[in-house]
Every structure is written in structure tokens, then in C-alpha cells.
């Protein structure tokens, strides 16, 4: 699971859960791989992100580096910054671990990089 995906996932699908966001991450195995950088794409995706969630996720994995805690202005023209965001969004991957619902504590396992978001019948 990349942090871009983590930024979008929630547990609101569970019956009785109000917000279900952001999901906590308990990582046992994290992998860093190189992904081609696309300036235009990264600037386009930033406004769609929840910045706090991204920062906290990266931080909890020990990979926030010098990513600023709040989103900077004029990021479109700041390649150095865009590269940092690119790294955090697409190159860090949780291979093994769990996502945790902030309201119920329900755990969603992540195995071989795939978050399991399937729910039991009594949960929906």
C-alpha cells in the first residue's frame, strides 16, 4: 500500500462508523522502491490530498524526512518540494502490517502490500 492510497482509504463503510478517517498504520515491513517522477502529475494530485494525513502517515513510518508539516504555497514551481511529495506518495510502500479504524479499532490486514478492505456481512 502506497501512501497515496492510504490518503484515500477510510473505514466509513463499517456500520456505525462516522468518519473512519484517517486510518492508523501499524507497519511491520516497509519497502522503498524507485518510481519515475512526473512533475505535472504530482502538482495536480496535491490539492486532492489531505496533507495532514500524508505527513502523519510518512512520519509514523519514519520516512517524513524534511517534508514540511504544512503544505507550502506555490508548490507547482518548486521541483525540490514536488520530488519529496512524489517520494512519500508513490515510493514508500507498506508491505506488511495493519490499518486501524480510528473509531472501532477494527484492523484491516496488509499482506504482500495489499490492504484487505473486505468486510464481514455483520459489519455492513
Amino acid at each position: 500500500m502506497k501512501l497515496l492510497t492510504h490518503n484515500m482509504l477510510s473505514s466509513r463503510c463499517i456500520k456505525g462508523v462516522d468518519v473512519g478517517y484517517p486510518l492508523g498504520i501499524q507497519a511491520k515491513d516497509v519497502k522503498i522502491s524507485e518510481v519515475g517522477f512526473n512533475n505535472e502529475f504530482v502538482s495536480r494530485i496535491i490539492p486532492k490530498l489531505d496533507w495532514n494525513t500524508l505527513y502523519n502517515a510518512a512520519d509514523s513510518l519514519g520516512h517524513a524526512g524534511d517534508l514540511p508539516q504544512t503544505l507550502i504555497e506555490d508548490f507547482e514551481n518548486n521541483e525540490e518540494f514536488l520530488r519529496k511529495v512524489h517520494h512519500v506518495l508513490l515510493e514508500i510502500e507498506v508491505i506488511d502490517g495493519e490499518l486501524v479504524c480510528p473509531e472501532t479499532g477494527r484492523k484491516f490486514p496488509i499482506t504482500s502490500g495489499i490492504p484487505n478492505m473486505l468486510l464481514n456481512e455483520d459489519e455492513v
Partner: protein
Amino acid sequence: MEEATISILAFTKHQPNPPPPQLGIVLLTCGKLTNKKILEELELNKKLLKQGGVPPLSTAPLAAVPGGSLPNLLRDLECCLEEVETFGTRAKIRLEQYPTPAHLAACVLHTIETSFGDISGRLVADLGCGCGNLTVGASLLGAASVVGFDIDPDALQVFESNRHNDFDGLRCPDDVEAVLCDVTSSVISSRWHGVFDTVIMNPPFGTKKKGIDLEFVKVGLQLAPVVYSLHKTSTRNHIVKKFEGRCQVLAQLRFNIDHSYKFHTRDSVDISVDLIKFCKK
């Protein structure tokens, strides 16, 4: 046949505003049309259209298109996709698991890229990604990132091994990932809405669970402004009515469901499938 839903796709991605819908011609190149074979095929397609049909997706060898690397792209893409491992004998009928054949997947993805520019540099979702052949193909065509969604953990295990295949040193589609979930549930919640640029999919056709094909389309249109999807030609009229003004039948394809799919008694069956482009209003 509702003529209004079919359009000329003979524009290139450098042309931001496509011409208004007229005829149904699918072009697999965005280079100059000097290739005799392609021209012949276009003529044939035009004839077909006058008779009220949708042309088959062109499969002409494109090697003679001058100056472009595109022809090789299509061939290379198909070669790579042939290496992608699929469901095999483990296919689950209940989930309508049949892979898009490599040749078809390559033609479809190549068309989406060269006619519409909707893959390269885009964030792409693949709904019902199965073992990931469309996902891998989109990645090889330069998608910024691809996320596949499927309900079957076994298929996604194969997906994981496919994404780590390096296609004989060509490139490893590492920039893709999968989420195990039911596409029709509310797991793909509003946070995902509008995040993707493009949705590609070969959804279950709805032969086991009625209406699931159009449920997939609906979810797709929440995720992205444009959805490219495969549907049984026999359901075309129904779909075109339901999504009037918001869909175009791009091409009609022969889809070979091969013998490994256990419930078919014959060795293999050809079914007719439409490639349909859906847009937000």
C-alpha cells in the same frame, strides 16, 4: 443502431477538442495516415458504418507508419501482456473471472492512449483488476500510477507476482498496487471521488449477478471523469439508452474466452464485446 452515440476517433491527443460525433472509426495511430493497409481498413470501416455497424478494433500491422515509434509500442505491449500470468484453471465462475486476452488488452489500451491521451501521466484505476493485465499494460504505457481493485485475494496474489515481473529487463510495473475490496460496496468512499484521471476495466458482464456491470460503470464515473469499459455487445442497446449522451461505442471486438475456463464445454468460445467510453455529463 443509434448513430449519435458513435463518433470519429480520428483525432490525435494533440487536439484538445475532439470533433463532434459523426461516424465510428477507430484509429490506432496518431501518426500520419500514409499506411495503405490502414487506409484500406478505414474504407472498410466506413462501409460497415453505412450499414449501421461498429467497426472492429483495427488490428492492422502498423509497422509501416513512418517516423513513429508507436507501431513497435503496440507490438511490444502485446508481447509483454502475453507474459502476464492470469487466472488459469483457478478462475472463479461466480466472479466472472476471465482474463482480457493479451492482444485485445494491448489494442484497447493503445487506443485509449493514442486516440485520447488518457493513460500516460495519468492516475488510473482498474476496477475488477483480477490478475492485473490491464493494470500492468497501463503502467507500461506510462501511467503515473495505477490502482487495481478486486474482490478476490487469490487473483490479487497473482497480481502481486505480475507487478514484480520485469518483462525481460524492459521495465517492472512497480508503480502499481492493488486494494482488496468489493467495488460495489461503500469501501471506495467519497475520499476517492474525482481522484483518478481515468478508469479502465473489464468488469463482470453481469451474467452471474445481474446489473453488476453497470454498477461498476457508476462507481467508475465517481472516481474519474472518463471510464473505458468492455461490455457484451448484446447489452449495447440497453447501455446506450441508460447512458444516453454520456457514452460512445468505440469498437466492437471478438473476445475469445479460452478453454481453461472450466464451465465452457467447447474448447473456446468467441463472444462479441464492445469497448465503450463513458463520460461524466
